């Protein structure tokens, strides 16, 4: 009997943990999208105000971000830019996306937006470059507000679902 109860507690704990994990992932997604948006704004400031070349501008952006994974994403672009065979900021950005696709909390529908920032990166005049990054930043903002609204609902749902799913399983098994 004791083992039964111990097993039941374990099942509930495990499913609650799963639900919680899912909720954390959703929150992280919102946070990381917000970090990308901040990165766009910082990059625009670097380009618009001081016309800092990309390797240094990206390093500056990286140092001002809070999320460790997103920081590493920008570090990867700088690393790619240093490779002679890359030779293009767009390609460096796309390669960083390939490397980090599975390592961030972002979902499939988030990546096309991040990818858009690569278009013409470093190959445009100052005004065009700023317009292009601004467009990406606006899209990221609207996309993230949608994701965030969804997240508030789903986060709670996943936490309950984890706990209640475990409890239901225990009842069935008992």
């Amino acid at each position, binding site marked *: 009997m004791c083992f039964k109860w111990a097993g039941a507690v374990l099942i509930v704990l495990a499913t609650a943990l799963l639900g919680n994990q899912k909720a954390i992932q959703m929150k992280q997604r919102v946070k990381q999208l917000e970090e990308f948006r901040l990165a766009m704004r910082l990059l625009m400031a670097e*380009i618009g105000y001081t*016309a*800092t*070349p*990309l*390797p*240094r*501008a990206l390093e500056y952006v990286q140092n001002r971000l809070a999320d460790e994974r997103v920081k590493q994403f920008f570090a990867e672009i700088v690393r790619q*830019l240093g490779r*002679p*065979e890359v*030779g*293009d*900021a767009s390609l*460096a950005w796309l390669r960083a996306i390939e490397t980090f696709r599975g390592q961030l909390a972002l979902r499939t529908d988030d990546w096309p937006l991040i990818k858009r920032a690569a278009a013409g990166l*470093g*190959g*445009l*005049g*100052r005004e*065009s*470059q700023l317009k292009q990054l601004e467009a990406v930043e606006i899209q990221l903002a609207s996309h993230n507000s949608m994701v965030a609204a969804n997240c508030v609902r789903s986060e709670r749902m996943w936490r309950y679902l984890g706990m209640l799913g475990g409890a239901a399983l225990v009842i069935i098994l008992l």
Partner: protein
Amino acid sequence: MLACPHKDIVVKLKMAKMAWKNHILPILPPRLQNIFDLMSGQAAEELEEIRLRAGKVLMIHSHRGENFVGLSGVTSSLSQAVTVTAAELQSTLLAVVEYSLYARDEELRRGYLSLPGGHRAGFVGRVVPEESRVKLLRDISGISIRIARAVKGAGEALLPQLYCARQRRVYHTLLVSAPQAGKTTMLRDLARLFSDGDLPKGRPGLKVGIVDERSELAGCYLGVPQLDVGMRSDVLDGCPKAEGMMMLVRSMSPQLLVTDELGRPEDARAVEEAVNTGVSILATVHGHCLEDLLKRPSIGYLLQQSLFERLVFLSRRKGPGTVEAIYSEETVKSRLKTGEIGHVL
């Protein structure tokens, strides 16, 4: 005419013979990088210019003339020379601008960019105009990479002729030569020598203000001089000459103002104003002889006003920096009077 101290001395290019590789190789595409990395000996030591043209053979220039470059180095055979591709030009351009065209678009509009180490890359391609101005340069079809070499000591022999020990000041001096005859190298070294000074020889260091409109003189990269222009030198990089001279006079109280390639009317006005404030002027101008200078209204005006106390004519007859003649203020006056304004040789 003053005695020419080293008329027959060739100013040897002996400094930093191979240092260019550290700065130039990283901006070249991998194939060209390998070629120039392997280049050694005289070709590498005397290299003055690398010419990349889309769909054309790779060429280099030195004071000995031009050469083709093949996979295994310098060659005289056109068939062995490598052909530069448009993609390689684009890659070089992006590397020069650090993958950020927006960061250097203003310079690119002028057709050249300064590189680390004081070197310079010039560009040609399709110009997109806007209201009779160059809006941007695109579809780059040719790049000329000019290697900057600081030749320390190049100006030493000229010092006694250009420095007035009694008044402890530099004579207002104009260095005159055709392009690529060592004007800028000489000017840079004179700026260094006057800036550092030599107290045991009775020449204290002077505060030198350098207006480096084309980033060629001090070879500034991100505002920091890459070439030695002396310990008391203040450099205004990328600044229009006329405006820069006045800015320096007001802000840095220089004793000597140094600038390259005078020519525009506003440059002449700024020189006149600076001279009247008591600052010495050391500048360069394109030309072969007095006649050439007089044909240019603004320079002609300065000569007629006897603003320059020394005119130094350089050539590359015995290598860049060969001093052909040094005219004092009196020589200029008498030559103007007698009409002896032809070739100095």
